[in-house]
Every structure is written in structure tokens, then in C-alpha cells.
């Protein structure tokens, strides 16, 4: 019986700042089984990067968190520091956003990858070098690249190095925060192919975070869409992408049009307004000021994730009030 690898329950994360409290994540629950892929979609300010950092408790010290993050049954948020350090990188690892700039420019990449290994295993230098070479090959780079400095590598290559670093201690879960955002579409395809291959070879579970819904649709099994610190829709990737239940998901998917679709030819779809400021969230459904199908009850209804089809949920009053479908669409 498979134990759920990652089980996030009612996670809340609030940053403290001079201007007051900023609720970045407001009650999010997610599950990920071993070997599964989950895509987390959302834009700036929705809390997705905070979520990623929270899973490994990498948030700044004065942040308030509540809820639980069970990694293989153990709650990361209440672990003792020693156990936490042991778990970080060996159970779950992160590839951060802007990873290209997360590399130390004055040290060779091989040394930086080795750093991760040294922190967790006591291996001889030769064994470490061998492992670094093995990791580089796994991500599609020749082993001799370990001697290069970051500036000698291209953007795509640096991203691969970051992935190699994340794999250094053979984690079971890889969290990738916007791994392809600054990359060209061909390099993006290469990196996504790599992630898929690694999943197959290593049985990795993958939590992929990005604002490009179509990337998630083609790489993940399930998608969860976040807005203003909450999940507003989740379900099987194809269903969520092809027939979004929540108006925000629909807007996100329309933002990157399908090439060949006449409906979007010379007709860019966008939402008015801007993603909300976490300090001043609208009442009721946080999306209502920008929602094209908002109705008078939206600002006053406390939305939750309601069933929206087989294995799907969405936090929209239209979903709640719709007649249940007799069979899958």
C-alpha cells in the first residue's frame, strides 16, 4: 500500500512585516503519491513559492505557520532541527525560481553539487567525484562539465546543474519552482523531457510550479490552481486545462492561446485589474473583482472547494450551484 509521500493539510503561512501581517498561504491542502506529478499554477502573489519553501521549512524565521506538512508521514513543521536537516535534500529537494542566479559564480559547479553530498554523506573524495559525474550525466551534461564555472554554461545548462544538485541525495520528491520560465521554448522542452525521464528512471514524485498552464497540462497528472493564497481549482490535468471549471483557470489557460485556434486569432484574452495584494484581499471570493462571470452573491459567499466533476473540485459559486453531471464530460 502506498503511503502518501506528501500530505499538506490546511497549511497557513503568514509573513510578518513592518506594515503588518501578510497572509501568503491561507489554508491549502494537497496530496502527492510516490511517483506522481502535481502541477501548481498561479501568478505572482498567489503563494505558490511560499508553499514550496514551506514544505522544507525554508521560510524566514519570523514567519507564522500552521497546519501540517507530512513528508512520508512525518510533520516537517514540527520536526526537530536535527531531523529536519537530515530530511532536507534526502527526502525532498527544491529547484528554486531564478535558479540560474542561485549558483555561486566563483566556484566550479562540480564543487557546488558536491557540497550537497558532503552535507549528508560521509564519502571519500573519489566517491563524491564519481557521484557528481554520475549526476551530471543523468541530467544530460558531460561529466567533465563539473570543472566549469557557472558563467561558462548557458541558461539551460545551468538549470540542469540545479537539477543535478537537487538530485544529489536521491530524494523521493522534487519541487521545481518555475524551472523553465526564463528559458527558450526549445530548452524548456529539453528540461521538461529531462524531468519526465528522471521521473521514469528514479521513480521521483514531482511538484511543478509555474504560471504557464499549458506546460503543466503536458507534463503533470494533476493540476492545482492557486489564487490569493488558496487553491481555487484542482483535478486531472487534461480536464482542468481543456474544460476549466473556475473562471480564473479559464483566464489563465486563455492567456497562452492554442496556436491554430481561430477563437484566439487577433483576440488576446486577458483579465482586467491585477493579482490582489495579500494585505488587502477582497471579501468573499477573492477573485470577484476581476471575474467575468461574477454575480451579486460572490463578495459575500465564503467559497470552498466544491465538487466539480469526477475527482475535481473548484471554489466557485457557479460550480456549487450547477446541477451535478450524470457522467464525465
Amino acid at each position, binding site marked *: 500500500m502506498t503511503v502518501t509521500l506528501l500530505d499538506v493539510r490546511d497549511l497557513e503561512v503568514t509573513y510578518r512585516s513592518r506594515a503588518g501581517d501578510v497572509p501568503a498561504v491561507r489554508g491549502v491542502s494537497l496530496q502527492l503519491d510516490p511517483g506522481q506529478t502535481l502541477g501548481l499554477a498561479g501568478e505572482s502573489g498567489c503563494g505558490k513559492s511560499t508553499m514550496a519553501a514551506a514544505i522544507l521549512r525554508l521560510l524566514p524565521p519570523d514567519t507564522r505557520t500552521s497546519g501540517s506538512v507530512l513528508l512520508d508521514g512525518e510533520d516537517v513543521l514540527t520536526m526537530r532541527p536535527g531531523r529536519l536537516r537530515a530530511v532536507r535534500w534526502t527526502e525532498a529537494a527544491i529547484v528554486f525560481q531564478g535558479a540560474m542566479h542561485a549558483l555561486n559564480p566563483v566556484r566550479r559547479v562540480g564543487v557546488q553539487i558536491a557540497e550537497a553530498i558532503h552535507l549528508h554523506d560521509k564519502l571519500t573524495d573519489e566517491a563524491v567525484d564519481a557521484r557528481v559525474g554520475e549526476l551530471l550525466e543523468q541530467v544530460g551534461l558531460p561529466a567533465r562539465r563539473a570543472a566549469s564555472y557557472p558563467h561558462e554554461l548557458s541558461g539551460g545548462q545551468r538549470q540542469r546543474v540545479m537539477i543535478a544538485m537537487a538530485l544529489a541525495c536521491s530524494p523521493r520528491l522534487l519541487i521545481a519552482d518555475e524551472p523553465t520560465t526564463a528559458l527558450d521554448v*526549445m530548452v524548456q522542452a529539453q528540461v521538461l523531457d529531462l524531468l519526465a525521464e528522471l521521473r521514469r528512471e528514479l521513480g521521483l514524485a514531482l511538484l511543478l510550479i509555474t504560471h504557464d498552464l499549458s506546460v503543466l497540462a503536458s507534463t503533470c497528472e494533476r493540476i492545482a490552481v492557486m489564487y490569493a493564497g488558496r487553491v481555487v481549482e484542482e483535478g486531472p490535468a487534461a480536464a482542468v486545462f481543456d474544460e476549466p471549471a473556475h473562471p480564473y483557470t479559464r483566464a489563465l489557460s486563455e492567456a497562452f492561446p492554442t496556436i491554430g485556434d481561430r477563437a484566439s486569432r487577433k483576440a488576446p484574452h486577458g483579465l482586467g485589474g491585477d493579482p490582489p495584494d495579500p494585505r488587502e484581499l477582497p471579501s468573499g471570493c477573492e477573485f470577484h473583482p476581476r471575474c467575468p462571470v461574477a454575480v451579486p452573491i460572490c463578495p459575500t459567499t465564503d467559497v470552498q472547494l466544491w465538487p466539480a466533476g469526477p475527482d475535481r473540485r473548484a471554489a466557485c459559486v457557479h460550480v456549487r450551484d450547477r446541477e451535478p453531471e450524470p457522467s464525465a464530460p
Partner: protein
Amino acid sequence: MSADPVPLPPSPDGQAASATPIAAEGLATTTDPDALEQPILEVRDLHVHFRPRRGRGPVARAVDGVDLAVRQGEIVALAGESGCGKTTLARTILGLERPTSGAVLYRGRPIGRGTAALKPYRREVQLVLQDPTGALNPRQSVYESVAEGLRIHGVKGDEEALVEHALARSGLRPPRRFFLAYPHELSGGQRQRVVIAGALALEPSMLVADEPVSSLDASVRGEILALLLGLVRDLGLTILVVTHDLGLAWNVADRLAVMYLGRIVEQGPTEQVLAAPMHPYTRALLSVVPEATHREPQVLAGEPPDPTRVPVGCRFHPRCPALAGGEAARAGVDGRCRGEAMPVLRGLGEHHAACFLTDESVKKEASDRLGR
């Protein structure tokens, strides 16, 4: 605009004979409808090469022979990956970079060199930059940023009214409330609108937009693109968009030119290029775009080579799936792919690509050989 009945293959104006810019033989040109209007902007056999600092070492051929023509009132997308030269091309068109050879013609006349000579041109052709945060001086208020162009050119008239008008045109309403704001108080989308307003204040005829939405949130993208479309519709602007996002081209562009390693490799009306791509590079790109899921993905290995080491023959041949997969050999052009220099692609006209496989005469030859 004069009705010039001469078909368009541009004259090199005394450039070296080796750069004869005629497209692949066999393509019909005499009934070309584009030849009847003089394009508002023309680029003729443009080369922009960068010498390395120390004087020694290879030259980076960022733009290596480009012909492009943009007609009034149309939106042309210049697409390609990083390093293909699209940004350099855009900057050279704006006069921010000096061409090594070739010409940029605005309304038929070459643009000048040097700040003074370029000044009148700059009133007509404006820039919208990629990163709206960096594009605005953080110490200047929105009013000052928008008024900057007016002050530089000494435009007479009520400055406040002009700024207000420009802000309103870019969708920032009520405009007066934005006068006092500073860039850090605005969202990404609003900042981009301020940049657009700054460009519009001078009432240009043409905008060059470099990745206008790539650093903005997904849900805001559509609004800015709709704004650009609105400007073309309402003000008759012409827009050249530089982007790596083919979906953006699908959304807004009338014509699409795909660049690879300093050259345009395919060009034509957007729908034709994206629905029936002719060049193997375009086909590969389209196949991996997540938003075009109906193709078998052809992920090319490696990355585009650097502009200091342009391959001999067709510059795409080392990565070309058609060559690697044997299609080129079957058509009998593999030798040409590897060894023959590709002529510069024509800047206007119907859909065509810089590929030996698409050369009509080659196709004819191949079909003859098959004994049809």
C-alpha cells in the same frame, strides 16, 4: 505612398555582389500584391557584427543578412530564441545599434547616424522595452517619464494635456491620478502601460516592442496585447513585435518572421507560417510549444551555436531533423545543405522559407527523378 509597380526584390545599393538578395528561384513574384505599396519600414541586407573587445578573436555575427519590410498598419512579429539576433535587429532598426553594412529605410529614406540625425526619426518610431520595471527611472514620477519625450523634442503645446491624453490612450484612467505615482507603486501591467504612454506621447507612426509581455503576469498579458491591437486599429500605428513566444504572434501578428542565428529563415502571413511551417526549424519549434499539442514533439538537441561560429552552408544544418532523418538526402539536397551558402530571404511577399528543401526547382527535380 507612391504606387510603385516594380516588384520588390530590394536593390543592394552598391553593396558587395556576393550578397545578392534574391529568393530561391522558382517562386512567382510578378503578381506580388505587396509590391504595389511602399513599405513604411524596410531593412535591406542588414549585417550587424560585433568585434570582440581586444580586437583579436572571432567576430559575433549577430545579424547576418536580413531583409525585412513592414507595411503601414500591420503588426509583424519577429520570433526566435535567445541569441538569434532579433533584439539586435530591433535595436538597429531604432538606431540604437550601428549596422556593419546594409540599410534601414524609413518611408524610403535611410535613417541617419548619430543622435542629431536620428532625432526626427525617433519621433516617428518608438520603443517599448521588455522589462517595464527597468524601463522607468525609479526616481521619476509617471508624469515625468511620459513627458520626457515631449521635453526632449521640445514639443509645443500644453504638456499636461498631452501627457494626460497619452496616459488615457494606454488605458490608465483617470490619468491625473497617475501623474504623481512612482514606478514602485504600480503593478507590472500598469508600468508597461506607462512605458507605452511615453512612446505614444510623441504620436509616432510605428512602435517596436521588445518582448512587451514576457515579464508580466499571465492574466495581464491579454490586456496589454489588446491595447496594442487597439492602437493599430484606432491610431493606424504599425507595430514590430520581437518575441520568443509564438503564441503571442498567433494572438496579434499579421505576419511572422522566424529568426535563427542572425537570419530570417521563414517569413509570411502568421496563419500560414504557423499552420503549415515550411522550415524544419519552425516545424521543430512549433512541435515543442506546449500550446500546440497536436504535433509530434521534435526536441532539438543542444542549443543554437554562438554567433561567432556560424556553420558553413545552411546555418541550421547541424541540428536539422530533415537532414539527420534523411529527408534532405532523399530530395537530393543534402550536399547543398552542408556546403552551399543560403541566400538572404526576401523581406516581403507570400509565405516562404530559406530552406533548400522548399526550393521549387528542387522539388520538381526530385519528382522528375521519381519518374512521375
